[in-house]
């Protein structure tokens, strides 16, 4: 097998090194060539980050003597990457320290004030990595780290308590009695206290929280069982009897804390990021002033200023168009993919993307007061509501608690006369035993394994409740643009059939700089054709392009005629005479029809939602196999949200760019693309690297998880019924409990692992 000449990792295709960092390090170690020697250290892509206004958004240092940046690094391969990136101070002057976290893929760099963010990024790029500067709030990170540490501390203490309790319980089960037995029992009591008053505190908090909203959940059951066990055991200890349950209670709490910790580890950590900042933080905006112009970040743009918006830039504030006509892509706001033409004096809302040449805009609001910011704020508050659904385990816990308590009460009332104090003891034993561990840790275990499996297959799943919800629904609603179709157009036909190579090159030359969806479609269809070097192309906004070239006048215009069958027609004319017709339709995703059919097989209702005109929407729906009366056309972002509200419970499939509100509203939402952080925040499942087949995959996974959870629950109910009956009949003593509880835990764990491995 061939290995890398530097790090000895296996390599393929006869390459000498496994990655660029190995090559650079090898040169450095053997020949003393600095990794950044002969590299280009500036790049136009990163230049804007040198701007102090933009840079300050990423600098988390509070001290003026140094700057501190954090990056997400893509392209980490082997241990050499750690060495190369951490030795940054040795070959890039001005860097004080550089620390990589390989598992989180983040790099933290401290620099002297003269180092600029853009140059730093360019240097990282020339080393062969893809950096993304992170602008997280330091407070949030710290709080999260602290929370995780506290959780681990509680688990550690619970583990130690459980281990020690077992150690001292075994001699007692083996028959140890007398004063030594009593000492052992007291030791168990004292070692149990840290668990009772430290490790188990989260259960009390959650139980109290659910009591306040008058709902019974699993934590309340655990709290009651734990306290019943504690009081009962302490009472027995004082009274000199043998009914001591410290060991089984401790191991039980330890197991639950552990499985819950794993569950949280698999949930995503990027949930509470600010969507709005995420959209604009990477752009520098040009403000026109008396002296000419200056650049600033989106937060420092104020009303009454003039903003020079660049082609393809996203507008952060509400505004009026001050220059002559311009084309905007409003898909972020409306979902409508066709470019919108705005004339001088027209309102242009925040979230519009400029498609034509640079435009001057008169700002009317700050970024934080724009309509877009308000709309995104409602998303933020809704996110919190969404997490509080009552899960199956909560329902089961609720019913079980009621049954167990009524049973205990009835038993006590009817047997008190005959059994006396023994009746009370048996009731407490019942409550201790009947706490179903399947509910308490079988379910989180199944969910955490499900999340792990989903992550392995490329899904980002926001919360585990998705699995439960997905298994319930029978209706799927697709967004059209960007989901069933790609947002580009495809050239389907042209007339006459053969276009000369010369005409092709002229058409491409005309469309060279255009970002119009039709232009992008053309460039893709004719990717191998030459492009004529046409200068001074005049773009008539929303209508087409024209130019003089080699003494002729060429025009490519949107036709006034309809292309038929929902197609869009464009006319190419030479010197005012039409010579070619081009027909475009939307590009359907290859797998769309297939996936819709699969949904029909699963007995799902399939519907479609779009901002497009009805005729075009129905045309697309027919091709995919969606019934025309299940097509909601001509919808705005707001009305999409309302439709989803009416159609709930449903699965909504959209893209994170323009369906944020609808995604947020849906019972279960699935996003197939979009900016990572904001999409993840509003959608339940996000699968950026996958096609629509991913939907079926995740539904199957959910069904599997749900059936595992249900079998666990059934088993637990059965097992605990028997245990409860034995307790009431007086057959349960601490030894039996110490055997019964671990056996059921073991059975449930192995069943879950076997089903979901």
């Amino acid at each position, binding site marked *: 097998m061939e290995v890398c000449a530097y790090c000895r990792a296996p390599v393929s295709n006869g390459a000498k090194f496994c990655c660029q960092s190995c090559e650079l*390090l090898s040169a450095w170690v053997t020949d*003393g060539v600095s990794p950044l020697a002969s590299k280009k250290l500036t790049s136009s892509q990163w230049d804007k980050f040198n701007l102090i206004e933009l840079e300050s958004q990423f600098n988390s240092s509070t001290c003026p003597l140094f700057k501190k940046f954090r990056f997400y690094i893509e392209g980490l391969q082997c*241990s050499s990457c750690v060495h190369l990136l951490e030795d940054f101070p040795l070959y890039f002057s001005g860097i004080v320290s550089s620390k990589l976290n390989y*598992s989180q893929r983040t790099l933290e760099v401290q620099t002297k004030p003269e180092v600029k963010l853009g140059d730093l990024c360019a240097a990282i790029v020339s080393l062969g990595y893809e950096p993304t500067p992170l602008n997280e709030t330091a407070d949030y990170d710290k709080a999260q780290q602290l929370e995780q540490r506290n959780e681990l501390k509680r688990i*550690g203490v619970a583990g130690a308590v459980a281990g020690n309790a077992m150690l001292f319980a075994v001699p007692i089960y083996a028959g140890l009695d007398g004063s030594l037995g009593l000492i052992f029992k007291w030791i168990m009591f004292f070692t149990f206290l840290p668990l009772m008053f430290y490790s188990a505190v989260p259960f009390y908090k959650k139980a109290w929280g659910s009591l306040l909203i008058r709902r019974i959940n699993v934590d309340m059951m655990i709290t009651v069982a734990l306290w019943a066990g504690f009081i009962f055991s302490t009472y027995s200890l004082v009274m000199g009897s043998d009914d001591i349950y410290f060991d089984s209670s401790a191991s039980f709490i330890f197991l639950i804390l552990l499985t819950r910790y794993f569950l949280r580890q698999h949930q995503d950590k990027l949930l509470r990021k600010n969507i709005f900042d995420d959209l604009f933080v990477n752009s520098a905006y040009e403000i026109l002033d008396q002296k000419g112009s200056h650049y600033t970040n989106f937060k420092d743009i104020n009303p009454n200023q003039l903003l020079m918006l660049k082609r393809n830039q996203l507008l952060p504030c509400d505004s009026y168009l001050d220059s002559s006509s311009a084309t905007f892509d409003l898909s972020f706001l409306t979902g409508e993919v066709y470019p919108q033409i705005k004339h001088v004096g027209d309102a242009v809302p925040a979230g519009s993307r400029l498609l034509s040449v640079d435009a001057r805009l008169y700002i009317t609001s700050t970024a934080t007061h724009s309509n877009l910011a308000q709309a995104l704020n409602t998303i933020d508050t809704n996110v919190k509501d969404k997490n509080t659904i009552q899960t199956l385990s909560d329902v089961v816990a609720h019913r079980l608690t009621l049954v167990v308590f009524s049973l205990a009460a009835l038993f006590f009332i009817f047997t008190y006369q005959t059994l006396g104090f023994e009746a009370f003891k048996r009731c407490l034993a019942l409550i201790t035993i009947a706490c179903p561990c399947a509910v308490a840790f079988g379910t989180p275990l199944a969910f955490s394994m499900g999340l792990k499996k989903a992550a392995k297959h490329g899904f980002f799943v926001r919360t585990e409740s998705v699995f439960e919800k997905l298994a319930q629904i029978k209706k799927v609603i697709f967004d059209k643009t960007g989901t069933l179709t790609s947002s580009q157009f495809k050239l389907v036909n042209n007339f006459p059939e053969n276009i000369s190579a010369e005409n092709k090159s002229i058409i491409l030359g005309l469309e060279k700089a255009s970002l119009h969806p039709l232009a992008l479609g053309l460039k893709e269809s004719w990717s191998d054709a030459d492009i004529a070097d046409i200068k001074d192309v005049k773009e008539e906004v929303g209508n087409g392009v024209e130019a003089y070239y080699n003494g002729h006048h060429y025009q490519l215009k949107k036709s006034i005629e309809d292309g038929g069958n929902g197609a869009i027609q464009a006319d190419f004319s030479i010197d005012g005479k039409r010579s070619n017709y081009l027909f475009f339709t939307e590009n359907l995703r290859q797998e769309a029809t297939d996936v819709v059919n699969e949904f029909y097989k699963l007995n799902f209702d399939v519907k479609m939602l779009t901002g497009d005109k009805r005729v075009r929407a129905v045309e697309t729906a027919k091709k995919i196999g969606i019934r025309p009366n299940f097509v909601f056309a001509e919808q705005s972002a707001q009305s999409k949200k309302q439709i989803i509200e009416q159609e709930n419970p449903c699965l909504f499939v959209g893209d994170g760019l323009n369906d944020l509100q609808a995604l947020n509203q849906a019972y279960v939402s699935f996003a197939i693309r979009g900016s990572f952080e904001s999409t993840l925040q509003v959608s339940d499942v996000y699968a950026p690297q996958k096609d629509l087949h991913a939907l079926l995959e995740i539904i199957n996974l959910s069904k599997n998880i749900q059936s595992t959870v249900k079998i666990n629950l059934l088993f637990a109910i059965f097992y605990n019924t028997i245990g409860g009956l034995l307790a009431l009949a007086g057959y349960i003593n601490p030894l039996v409990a110490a055997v019964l509880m671990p056996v059921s835990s073991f059975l449930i764990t192995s069943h879950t692992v076997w089903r979901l491995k």
Partner: protein
Amino acid sequence: MSTILFMVAVALILSITFVVSYLWALSSGQFNDLDTPALRILKDDILKGTERKNHEQQ
């Protein structure tokens, strides 16, 4: 009897020591990153190459 009690006391002190040292290690951030330190240790001495080059030049 007294031997057993002595052993029990030792066991308890040991377990408390372990718990306390675990809590200390956790608070001082030793479990923050479990992957990078293992890779960091494999590092070559970069300065060797640079020195060798300087030496050759002399």
